[in-house]
């Protein structure tokens, strides 16, 4: 019976219910999408770096696991030293440059041969490998997003590049240029940001790392096998705080809308509350009825929010193919719990208010 009362009450004011449901939906979608976008981008980046196929990565001291934040403080001659180590099969120096001139990109400056030795080479979907200093390779997602075709000119870092080939995605970056060209353009002559290394056998990875440590004291020497686990929000300064802030913001929206909605409901139904009291409804019954309405709205809102998340992701990915939004069951459940908790909290005060109403005053309310 109380369920019928709850459902009928919620449906009695469709506009208010729709607004509340949308607010909860936005709350849920915000949480899912913000977390999905950050974790999606991190995971996709990690997969691409793992996709290079290297066993070890050498970075300067205190360098971030997020390669885009790396500068170019290492002499390129380190590569020669690394090649001398036992069990090292290939070394690829890479210079990284962040660019926001034509979308947000991390450009890899590579020596095609050494990069091929480490990674096994690109899979060309169109065109061919870089031959001249102004050649650029793009992965298929970037080419689609930037609407670029082979042999066209692509302006990057105030420089006109010739698109030599379009490669399959998943080899570190989306844009690749000649190492020397990028060194010139970024004023980092004979410098590299990171060295990717391939050992003669993956089983020797630890042995190589152990050999490297005394030679490069303080340097960041990381096995790429576990790279995915390192790419988390907690390893990026401020990202966790950003995510938490956005979640708090989203919850606040849901909380305030539910609070306002239930408050107006209580005011509007003052007489009904008096009626319920006159027929013997306890305070607990009245609280349950109002919290039930909030839960009902939240449950529909959660469903709407999940649908909105998938819909928004589809729209985003069709407009920005290089984006990655990871929607996980874990965060769907978390966002649902967060929305439900916010909704219950928002309805608590109006419900408490209703339960304490004076029955006689409530019955004479117009």
């Amino acid at each position: 019976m109380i369920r019928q009362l709850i459902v009928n009450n919620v449906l009695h004011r469709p506009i208010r219910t729709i607004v509340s449901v949308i607010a909860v939906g936005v709350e849920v979608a915000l949480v899912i999408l913000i977390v999905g976008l950050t974790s999606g981008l991190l995971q996709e980046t990690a997969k691409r770096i793992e996709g290079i196929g290297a066993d070890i990565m050498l970075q300067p001291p205190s360098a971030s696991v997020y390669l885009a934040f790396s500068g170019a403080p290492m002499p390129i001659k380190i590569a020669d030293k690394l090649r001398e180590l036992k069990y090292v099969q290939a070394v690829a120096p890479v210079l990284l440059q962040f660019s926001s001139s034509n979308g947000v990109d991390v450009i890899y400056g590579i020596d095609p041969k050494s990069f091929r030795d480490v990674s096994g080479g690109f899979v060309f979907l169109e065109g061919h490998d870089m031959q001249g200093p102004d050649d650029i390779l793009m992965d298929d997602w970037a080419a689609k997003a930037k609407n670029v075709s082979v042999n066209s000119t692509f302006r990057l870092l105030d420089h006109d590049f010739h698109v030599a080939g379009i490669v399959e995605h998943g080899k570190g970056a989306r844009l690749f240029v000649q190492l020397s060209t990028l060194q010139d353009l970024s004023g980092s002559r004979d410098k590299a940001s990171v060295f990717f290394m391939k050992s003669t056998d993956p089983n020797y990875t630890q042995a190589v790392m152990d050999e490297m440590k005394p030679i490069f004291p303080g340097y960041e020497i990381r096995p790429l096998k576990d790279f995915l686990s390192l790419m988390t929000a907690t390893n990026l300064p401020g990202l966790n705080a950003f995510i938490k802030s956005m979640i708090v913001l989203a919850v606040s929206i849901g909380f305030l809308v539910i609070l306002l909605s239930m408050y107006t409901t209580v005011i509007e139904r003052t007489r009904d509350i008096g009626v319920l009291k006159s027929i013997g409804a306890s305070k607990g019954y009245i609280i349950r009825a109002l919290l039930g309405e909030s839960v009902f709205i939240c449950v529909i809102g959660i469903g709407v929010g999940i649908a909105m998340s998938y819909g928004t992701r589809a729209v985003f990915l069709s407009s920005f193919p290089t984006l990655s939004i990871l929607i996980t069951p874990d965060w769907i459940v978390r966002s649902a719990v967060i929305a439900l908790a916010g909704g219950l909290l928002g309805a608590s005060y109006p419900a408490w208010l209703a339960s304490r109403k004076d029955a006689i005053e409530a019955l004479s309310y117009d």
Partner: protein
Amino acid sequence: MPIAITIRPPADALLTTRDLRVEPIVVTEDLWKLYHAGKVEVPALRGVNFKVLPGEFVSVMGPSGCGKSSLLYVLGGLAQASRGRVLVDGNDLSTMSDAERTKLRRDKIGFVFQRFNLLPTLDARGNIAIAQHIHGDGFNSARFGTITKLLGLTERLKHRPSEMSGGEQQRVAIARAIINDPKIILADEPTGNLDTQNSEIVLSMLSQLNKDLGQTIVMITHNPEAAEYSTRVVHMRDGVIVDGVPAA
């Protein structure tokens, strides 16, 4: 199929047995109710002494502001007495907490209001059944069927209050009031919002409930014609009962 309606002795029989020391179902002793308007105390009831026997249909009459509704609210446990005692079926409301009075209301009292006070989002069936639900015994379909048939509501159960006439709404309110077989029905101007025809229907039904089922009823009214349906009329003035004689 068993019908869960308590058949009580007819009111006439009770009236004749009043002298045989039948325990009253409602007793008030020096009952006071004070309201506060700022720092000023406004007495609505000034020492009411009043008894209702089981099976009686008592009308309480009096001018506006004489304390009729206050008396009804205190009898029904909706308001706490300021002084004095109120006993309903042996329970002293003046010493009971709000929660205890709520429980008493749920178990032993049925209210009928002037403005019907049905829940607008529920249909007639829901408005009656919710009282059963709150009472806690679940939906008793046999009793529900009997009551709705008795009040001529069988064909209107799927209609919401906004789709029913005033008379129909009041009949639903009566059904809600008696669905849990209360010890007493407290009716506050039940015909105040009805035309003559519907007033007669509602009063006849209350009278029928009293006569056929022995339902105890206390009705507030300022309409002498309505009071004629009752077995006893009590007059109030300035917060006190000034007389109490059996109706003609």
